[in-house]
């Protein structure tokens, strides 16, 4: 017994190291296979507030560029509105609209790691909840993962765990949008069958198969493509429309029918 105690005492630092390393490893491996930890993430009160204070200062530096981008978006949307076929200038009945849109500001951006999460300054208090789609003025950004009272974290498309339904614009062939962690401007579209005519420069948009994003939200353009190992599906490199390194204002999309769709689907699988 004495010798066991002596042994433990002699190597107590090693034991301590193994203990800490074990905790850290378990957390790391969990983060590879499961969702982000519920309690330790940057949407928490203290980290969110510190990021919020930092963003308050840094947001002044590109105010001009950001305003210009928003005006351009407004112009595009105005054009669509005036050219719309139906009389959409009549007041919208918000109870009938399937998609609700909220706006938010990014307070923490990240695009260099293989699993990127960004933090936004809206939370539960403002009606944000898990699995809302997030888009920028140019294209898609990701899906809300964790929500606290005042902040939320968003799993970016630049995340190896991200998997978003997407299709080639104008066709109904859809595949999955994933990321290989190599270049933050390029994501990959897989599972597009070989018989589909693919042309470099074609636009990729979100598909209608997910209840998170509405159909036809722009994602990017085809940069290059080749066949996968089995020679039956395309691997397509998609250059993103949104510049992930430079985002400030984002929109959150809520699908009011989502709960109903999810419930129906889970019942069908049972």
């Amino acid at each position, binding site marked *: 017994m004495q010798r066991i105690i002596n042994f433990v005492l002699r190597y107590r630092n090693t034991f*301590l190291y193994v203990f800490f390393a074990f*905790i850290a490893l378990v957390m790391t491996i969990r983060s590879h296979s499961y969702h982000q930890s519920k309690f*330790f993430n940057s949407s928490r009160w203290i980290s969110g507030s510190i990021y919020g204070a930092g963003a308050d200062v840094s947001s002044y530096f590109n105010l001009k560029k950001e305003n210009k981008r928003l005006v351009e978006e407004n112009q595009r949307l105005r054009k669509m509105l005036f050219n719309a076929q139906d009389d959409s200038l009549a007041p919208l009945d918000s109870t009938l609209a399937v998609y609700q849109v909220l706006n938010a500001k990014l307070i923490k951006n990240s695009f260099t790691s293989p699993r990127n999460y960004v933090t936004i300054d809206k939370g539960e208090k403002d009606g944000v909840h898990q699995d809302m789609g997030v888009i920028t003025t140019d294209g898609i950004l990701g899906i809300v993962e964790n929500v606290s009272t005042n902040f939320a974290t968003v799993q970016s498309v630049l995340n190896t765990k991200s998997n978003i339904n997407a299709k080639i614009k104008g066709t109904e062939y859809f595949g999955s949008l994933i990321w290989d962690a190599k270049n933050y401007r390029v994501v990959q579209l897989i599972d597009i069958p070989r018989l589909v005519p693919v042309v470099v420069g074609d636009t990729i948009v979100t598909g209608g198969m997910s209840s998170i994003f509405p159909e036809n939200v722009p994602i990017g353009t085809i940069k290059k493509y080749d066949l996968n190992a089995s020679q039956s599906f395309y691997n397509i490199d998609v250059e993103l429309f949104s510049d992930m390194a430079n985002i400030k204002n984002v929109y959150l999309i809520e699908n009011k029918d989502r709960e109903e769709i999810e419930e129906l689907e889970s019942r069908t699988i049972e």
Partner: protein
Amino acid sequence: MSSTLIINILRFVLLVITQVLIFNNLNFLGFINPFVYVIFFYWYPIKGNRAVFMLSAFLLGLVIDIFSDTLALNALASVTIAYARPSIMRFCFGVNYDFQSFSFKNTTKVQRVTFLALLVILHHLIFFSFEILSIAHILLILKKVLATGMVTLILCVLFSSLFSPKSE
């Protein structure tokens, strides 16, 4: 004794803030975000209790992880370099390290930079390997370790000469 404690707590907080607000957003060349907080392990008193040292390393890593949503990667890398520090010091400073009178003042600049470089390389190797966790990405891991490590080392050398502790 208590003044060293206060200095270290202050250092801890300031390093976390500089790391998450400045250096995590640097994105130099599109992918380089140096981990300057590694200098904490260079500055930490040599004669302190090792268990306390490892505990503070774990907490420092964990706090930075919570901010950067990279749960426990920084904690893992930090605890490892905290555990390996005595061996690295023995390697860099030779037998001098074992004497009670050892202090950084008696060492050469080259020895100190080597010590810092080994800490940085070990930290980055563990961080990026576990971040990607795939042998297929070995070239990406090496590229990130070398490029980020280089920038971290330069910044840490600058920091260490700017804010050198007077007598520890």
